């Protein structure tokens, strides 16, 4: 018997718009979104508030004082704004995506929607973009608040390069959220139970934040020779360790942010930095121009975006194969 394997007809994006609009308005009007916003404000405002206090005491002139709001660890709490974001963005993304598909399944709306002229591609992508837009709205609002607070409390406006770097930071933060949104949606496709999918996504999040740094460290130590014979050996071991760490989206985000917000960053890794200073005669304190910083973190940015696309594609493939009976 011949299988009906011809190419399907019609645009895969038919119906994308309505799904996107519905998801966005659902998210923005949901109680969950209010809880998440509250959460973000509390956890974001606290470090920023403390940091601003610390910064006000700094008297020496700093070209990038404004960007320090995001990166300086305040005296009162050992967490900077960007470090708080590294934790919170995944939580927000998971909160928005963990029940994207399986809740439709459980409400038995999925087959009714899929019996309308729309491909699954459009449904999944619409949900993803809706979640991403929600995340973007929330993060933009948070950034505006922080910028505003900085303006008021520091009493000086950010300069052009600072604004550019701040905006790039926002974009990187949204991409980082996109990775975790894709992860959450993947679990929402795999598991019928929303609780299971939330648990798995949170489990992965904990794994990357707590266990993975330790595991990567242990593996790297295991590969270390008993005695280093050259600088190159030290450098390559450090690079290996970094490569392992970079499997975690949090590391990519952290490095990208440091590259953007601390313009004097020229390399990642202690030894690499040292070597660079000595061999190329670069001085620690001089900042890179914006485009050079972008070039430096380009691999991190592409890594985040590639991760997002890969995870989304897996979710898509799983969803295509799933039979929708409810």
């Amino acid at each position, binding site marked *: 018997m011949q*299988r009906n394997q011809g190419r*399907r007809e019609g645009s895969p994006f038919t119906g994308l718009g*309505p799904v996107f*609009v*519905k998801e966005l308005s659902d998210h923005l009007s949901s109680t969950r979104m209010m809880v998440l916003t509250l959460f973000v404000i509390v956890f974001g405002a606290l470090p920023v508030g403390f940091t601003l206090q610390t910064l006000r005491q700094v008297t020496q002139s700093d070209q990038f004082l404004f960007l320090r709001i995001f990166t300086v660890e305040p005296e009162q709490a050992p967490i900077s704004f960007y470090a708080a974001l590294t934790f919170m963005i995944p939580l927000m993304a998971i909160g928005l995506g963990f029940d994207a598909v399986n809740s439709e399944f459980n409400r038995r709306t999925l087959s009714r*929607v*899929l019996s309308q002229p729309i491909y699954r591609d459009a449904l999944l992508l619409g949900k993803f973009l809706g979640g991403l837009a929600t995340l973007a709205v929330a993060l933009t609002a948070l950034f505006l608040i922080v910028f505003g607070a900085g303006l008021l409390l520091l009493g000086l406006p950010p300069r052009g390069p600072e604004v550019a770097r701040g905006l790039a930071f926002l974009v990187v933060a949204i991409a980082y959220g996109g990775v975790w949104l894709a992860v959450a949606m993947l679990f929402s496709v795999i598991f019928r139970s929303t609780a299971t999918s939330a648990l798995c996504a949170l489990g992965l999040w904990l794994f990357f934040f707590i266990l993975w740094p330790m595991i990567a460290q242990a593996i790297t130590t295991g590969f270390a020779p008993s005695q280093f014979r050259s600088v190159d050996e030290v450098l390559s071991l450090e690079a290996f360790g970094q490569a392992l760490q970079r499997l975690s989206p949090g590391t990519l985000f952290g490095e990208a942010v440091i590259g953007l917000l601390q313009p004097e960053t020229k390399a990642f890794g202690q030894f690499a930095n040292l070597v660079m200073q000595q061999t190329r005669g670069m001085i620690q304190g001089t900042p890179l121009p914006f485009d050079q910083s972008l070039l430096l973190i380009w691999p991190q940015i592409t890594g985040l975006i590639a991760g997002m696309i890969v995870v989304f594609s897996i979710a898509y493939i799983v969803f295509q194969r799933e039979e929708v009976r409810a």
Partner: protein
Amino acid sequence: MSDPLEVDNVIEARGLLKLYGSARAVDAIDLSIRKGEIFGLLGPNGAGKTTTILMMLGLTETSGGSIEVLGFNPVRQPLEVKRRVGYLPDAVGFYDNLTARENLVYIARLLDIPRRQTTARIMEALEAVQLADVADKRVATYSRGMRQRLGIAEIVMKKAEVAILDEPTSGLDPHATFELLEMIRGLKKANVAVLLSSHLLDRVQSVCDRVALFNKGKIALMGTVVELANQVLGAGHPILVEASGIDVPAVLKGIEGVQRVVPEGGAWRIVADRDVRAVAAQRIVAAGGSLTRLAELQPSLEEVYTRYFEEARRAA
């Protein structure tokens, strides 16, 4: 396709096959549904009704054979099929946090109904299923029957050419069932071909033009209810006789043309090859019995169904 009859078919399946592993959920069925008819899919749980429906909508892949809905192939042209076919799934769900109207607006957007027409078409559809006065209540407050009706409203709004309803009456009380069947008749009046699956046989019987009896993935029987009855129960005129004071079976068996006499709840059911009511009445009265009831029985789908599966089980 030179046969003029086939041109009028809205759904045409040939050798349609669905395998789950090695299990044949739908086993090479042939099925055609004509324009403007109400067609019933019947069969026990797990017979393959839902699977057949999903293949018609392109919601699950076929494993073999061919299927065409309104001339389109649901596998390659699912959008064309789904634009024209309305589907009411088994245990349909809506977005509970939205109102009925908002639920339909979302579907209207997906269907790309022009915005200027949306409001009017939604109201029209809700009126057709008598939900207009609760259009702005959240669906969370709806009863099961109201949800089913909202599902029908969606099909009306869609102006579907074919409506596929999976167990539309399951879980409904008799009155709600009656109302829903009226709405299904309404669809037929609006020239929509209706395919429905159900377990409520006597209800199905009252609306369906033709039925197909599914058994283990195969279509065991297909045709009008009378045709099926003739096939399964044997051709003939069943009548019911209630009498007392004599040995009724003996008298009845003496009548020419009577094939069987079976007791049924204090009365006797006779199957004869012709209408023997007049003769039966004469004989009973002549024998000194008192005749209290004499009725011609309509062949019932329930009976066809029960008998068929009894025989199938015995044969197995």
